[in-house]
C-alpha cells in the first residue's frame, strides 16, 4: 500500500492568504498548485535522507555540533512540507497526497566511514541543496505576494543551512584527506553528476511559464534547467575543485555520453 501524507490539519491550523488569485487564469493556478503539491511530498520525504546521515556522522566521529545540526534538518524538512501544504490549501488544493517512492540511502559498503559520509554530503549538500538554494532564491525574487515571499524566505533560510553544512564539513575534513581518498571521491562524483542530471532533466520537458504563473510558483522549465546547470558548473564544481577533487573531469565524464550522442 502506498503511504499517504495527510497535512490537511496542519495546513488548516495556520491558513495562508494569497490575495488576487481570482485575477489569475485557472490553468496558471493549476500549474502552480501541482508544483506545490509535489513539493509538499518531496520535502516531507527528504527528511529521511537527513535521518540516514545521523549514523554516518556518528560512525565517522565528527563533532557533536554536526550531528545536532543534521538532526535539526530532519525537522526543518518536515516543516517545509507543512509550509508547502499551506500554499496548496491557499491555492484551492487538498493537502493530502501519496508519498513518492522512498529510495533507500545507499550503504556505501565499499567505503570507510568518512569516505561514505563525504559521498552523501557531497550529493546532498554540495549538489542537491546548493541547487535548491539557487532555485528557491530565484523563485523568491519573483514571488507575487508577501505571503509567498515569506514562505519561500523561510524555506530558503533552512536550505542555506543544509547546503552550508556540507561545504563547512568539507572545509574541515578536506585538508586531512589523502590522495587515494580524493581519487576515490572524484570517481564517485561521476555517479553524483549523472544522478543530478537525471534528477533535474524533467525541467527540460516542462514549458516556459508566464511571469504571473511563476509568481505563484509554477515551474518555468527552461529557466530552472539553466539555474541547475549554472549552479553545478559555476558553484559546485569550483567548490569541489578547491578541495582537491577532480570535479571538472567527473562532470565531463558524466556528460560525455549525452553530448557525444
Amino acid at each position, binding site marked *: 500500500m502506498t503511504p499517504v501524507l495527510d497535512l490537511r490539519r496542519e495546513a488548516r491550523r495556520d491558513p495562508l492568504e494569497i490575495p488576487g488569485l481570482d485575477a489569475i487564469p485557472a490553468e496558471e493556478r493549476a500549474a502552480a498548485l*501541482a*508544483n506545490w503539491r*509535489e*513539493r509538499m511530498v*518531496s*520535502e516531507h520525504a*527528504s527528511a529521511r*535522507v537527513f535521518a540516514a546521515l545521523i549514523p554516518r556522522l556518528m560512525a565517522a566521529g565528527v563533532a557533536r555540533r554536526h550531528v545536532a545540526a543534521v538532526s535539526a534538518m530532519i525537522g526543518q*524538512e518536515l516543516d*517545509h512540507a507543512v509550509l508547502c501544504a499551506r500554499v496548496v490549501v491557499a491555492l484551492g488544493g487538498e493537502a493530502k497526497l501519496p508519498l513518492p517512492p522512498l*529510495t533507500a540511502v*545507499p550503504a556505501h559498503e565499499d*567505503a570507510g566511514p568518512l569516505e561514505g559520509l563525504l*559521498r552523501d554530503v557531497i*550529493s*546532498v549538500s*554540495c549538489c*542537491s541543496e*546548493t541547487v*535548491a*538554494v*539557487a532555485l528557491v*532564491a530565484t*523563485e523568491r*525574487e*519573483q514571488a507575487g505576494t508577501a505571503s509567498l515571499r515569506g514562505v519561500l524566505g523561510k*524555506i530558503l533560510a533552512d536550505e*542555506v543551512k*543544509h*547546503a552550508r553544512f556540507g561545504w563547512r564539513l568539507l572545509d574541515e575534513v578536506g585538508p586531512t584527506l589523502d590522495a587515494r581518498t580524493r*581519487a*576515490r571521491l572524484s*570517481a564517485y562524483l*561521476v*555517479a553524483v553528476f*549523472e544522478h543530478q542530471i537525471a534528477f*533535474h532533466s524533467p*525541467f*527540460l*520537458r516542462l514549458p516556459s511559464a508566464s511571469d504571473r504563473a511563476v509568481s505563484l510558483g509554477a*515551474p518555468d*522549465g527552461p*529557466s*530552472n534547467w*539553466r539555474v541547475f*546547470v*549554472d*549552479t553545478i*558548473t*559555476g*558553484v559546485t*564544481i*569550483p*567548490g569541489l575543485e578547491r578541495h582537491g577533487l577532480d570535479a*571538472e573531469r567527473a562532470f*565531463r565524464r558524466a*556528460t560525455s555520453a*549525452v*553530448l557525444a*550522442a
Partner: protein
Amino acid sequence: MNSTRSIARRRGLRMAAQVASIAGVVAASAALSQAAPARPATANIAPQEGVMLGDEGKGAADQLGDAIRVRNASGCGCSPCWGPPAPPPMRAELLEEGLS
C-alpha cells in the same frame, strides 16, 4: 528569456555561491559573461571561470539540455523538487577507472 528572470536567476546563483564561499568566482564569471563574446562552455569549463551566466549564445545549459532532449523525449511532466533525493550508489567500474 526575459530580463526579470535573468536578474532573479543571477541573484539565486550568487546566493548559492555565497553558501559555498565562492562568491568571487561567480562574480568574476558574471562580469566575464557580460564582457566576452559567446563561447561554448560545457566541455571545457575552467574551474576559476565557472560558466557564462548571460542569455547570449549557447552556454552549458543549452548544450546539455539539447543533447538530453534528443535522447529522452518522453516523461511524467512533473517538476523536480527541492528536497534532496537519496544519493546514488557507487559503481565499481568508476572506482577502477578513477584509480587506474
